[in-house]
């Protein structure tokens, strides 16, 4: 009993004892660190236990079957530019290793170890094969499917979004051997058929791999769009405050959106109105458009609902809104750019129509 009392009295001895007895062995520390890193950085999209969500189900056997440790490391480092998955370029090497060790606990079999050897094939022939067998899901330019991954709460046509095979993050992470293996064996549990099921020879698989590899460019990602765009769209109104509000409502309906309601900016805040200043938010929506946008990326709620604000300050009336083009840069989701461009057109049209 006496030794235990000494241990409890001295933190130095207690710490040493925990290390020596293996309660804090390097591997348990790494596992704990990996779990913490996963929870804090990955679980938001990939699910608490790697079961998937906005991100793919990392714990699934079909994913882990082909994913080497090197592939995981590169994917964490580079992310998937334009496909939601961010780059963790800032994460220390030891943390990435701990994260991979944590992910590896979900494996039934040891990780594959792909060589970096290039596969020789005919990319022209591969392009034809890709068009016939792959493009329906992966897109005509291998840009991948739209929308988020597994079991997001609203219905999705395909349980796992088809991979963007032209993505530079993927191409710099997945060696040819890995691509060849996936095409040959497919992904178990997905709707992807194997090359065998499609009746494709090994040589044809090589051609497809060569075609996919032809998308690789020296530059990892494109320059961000719209860096020069203002964050807010603001236009002066020649009309009175009240008339401008009515003009905005008419313009909203004219753009095929539904006017929901008006609200003072300080509504619900129990503050005295400022002198010579009025601000009215006009909320509106197009539910079909909203639904489609949420399917592409549920994070767009950060900027919902649609609204235009009419502001009067010292007799000057202005109409203003967010600038969706500017905000599209925040999402790392190219599929959302089209929606953001459309909303930009809607906002500018409403602002212009209301001030004509």
């Amino acid at each position, binding site marked *: 009993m006496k030794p235990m009392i000494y241990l409890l009295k001295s*933190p*130095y001895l207690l*710490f040493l004892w*925990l290390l020596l007895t293996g309660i804090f062995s390097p591997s348990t520390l790494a596992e*704990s*660190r990996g779990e913490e890193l996963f*929870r*804090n*950085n990955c*679980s*938001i999209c990939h*699910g*608490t236990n790697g079961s998937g*969500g*906005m991100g793919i189900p990392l714990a699934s056997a079909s994913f882990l079957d082909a994913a080497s440790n090197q592939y995981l490391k590169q994917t964490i480092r580079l992310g998937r530019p334009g496909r939601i998955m*961010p780059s963790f370029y800032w994460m220390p090497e030891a943390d990435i290793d701990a994260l991979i060790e944590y992910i590896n606990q979900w494996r039934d079999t040891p990780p594959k170890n792909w060589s970096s050897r290039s596969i020789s094939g005919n990319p022209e022939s591969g392009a034809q094969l890709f068009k016939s067998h792959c493009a329906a899901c992966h897109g005509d330019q291998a840009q991948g499917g739209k929308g988020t991954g597994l*079991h997001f*709460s*609203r*219905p999705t046509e395909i349980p796992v979004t088809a991979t963007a095979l032209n993505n530079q993050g993927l191409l710099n992470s997945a060696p040819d051997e890995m691509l060849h293996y996936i095409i040959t064996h497919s992904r178990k549990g997905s709707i992807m058929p194997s090359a065998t099921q499609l009746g494709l020879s090994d040589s044809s698989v090589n051609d497809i791999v060569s075609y996919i590899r032809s998308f690789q460019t020296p530059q990892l990602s494109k320059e961000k769009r719209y860096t020069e765009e*203002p*964050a*807010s*769209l*603001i236009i002066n109104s020649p009309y009175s405050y009240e008339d401008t509000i009515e003009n905005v409502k008419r313009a909203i309906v004219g753009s095929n959106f539904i006017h929901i309601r008006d*609200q003072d*900016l*300080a*509504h*619900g*805040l129990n*503050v005295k109105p*400022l002198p010579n*200043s009025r*601000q009215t938010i006009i909320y509106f*929506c197009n*539910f*079909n458009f*909203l*639904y489609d946008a*949420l399917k592409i990326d*549920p*994070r767009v*709620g*950060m*900027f*919902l*609902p649609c*609204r235009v*604000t009419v*502001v009067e*300050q010292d007799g000057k009336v*202005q109409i*203003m*809104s*967010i600038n969706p083009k*500017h905000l599209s840069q*925040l*999402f*790392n989701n190219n599929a959302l750019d089209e929606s953001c461009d459309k909303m930009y057109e809607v906002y500018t049209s409403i602002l212009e129509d209301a001030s004509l």
Partner: protein
Amino acid sequence: MRNLIICLFLSLISSPASAVVTGEMIMVRSSEAFPETMSLLQEAISNKGYTLVRVQRVDVGLTAKGYKTDKYRVVFFAKGEQLQQLSAQYPQLIPYLPLKIAIFAEDENTILISANPTVFNDMFNIPALRPVLQTWQNDITDILNTVQTAN
């Protein structure tokens, strides 16, 4: 030295959850169901000194129009005098006010997401706003961490 060892020991045995703060967003996953998480969120907002302005029931609107969706809400909050002062001084900020957090169900979990207010630093490039935006980032991170650790 003794305190250092104790801190090291405590840091090894504890692994507190924390919100994911990227340059652009602040996000957490709560293992609680949507109704419980929504209550925790509203309480955390209030405890941080903000007034809950409104809850936009996005899912209700979608369902009423025939779309199938799980729970999806947007929670608006602000500090009254601060909002008035900033909107008068920097009207270009108005379209982004009040602050908001999107909260939606994903199976048995709930996901909470907010834009990281510090992205407005680059968007507006107003040096005087930087401390305010940093405070908002800290507050939103604290709010979301509170919700997550309350599981």
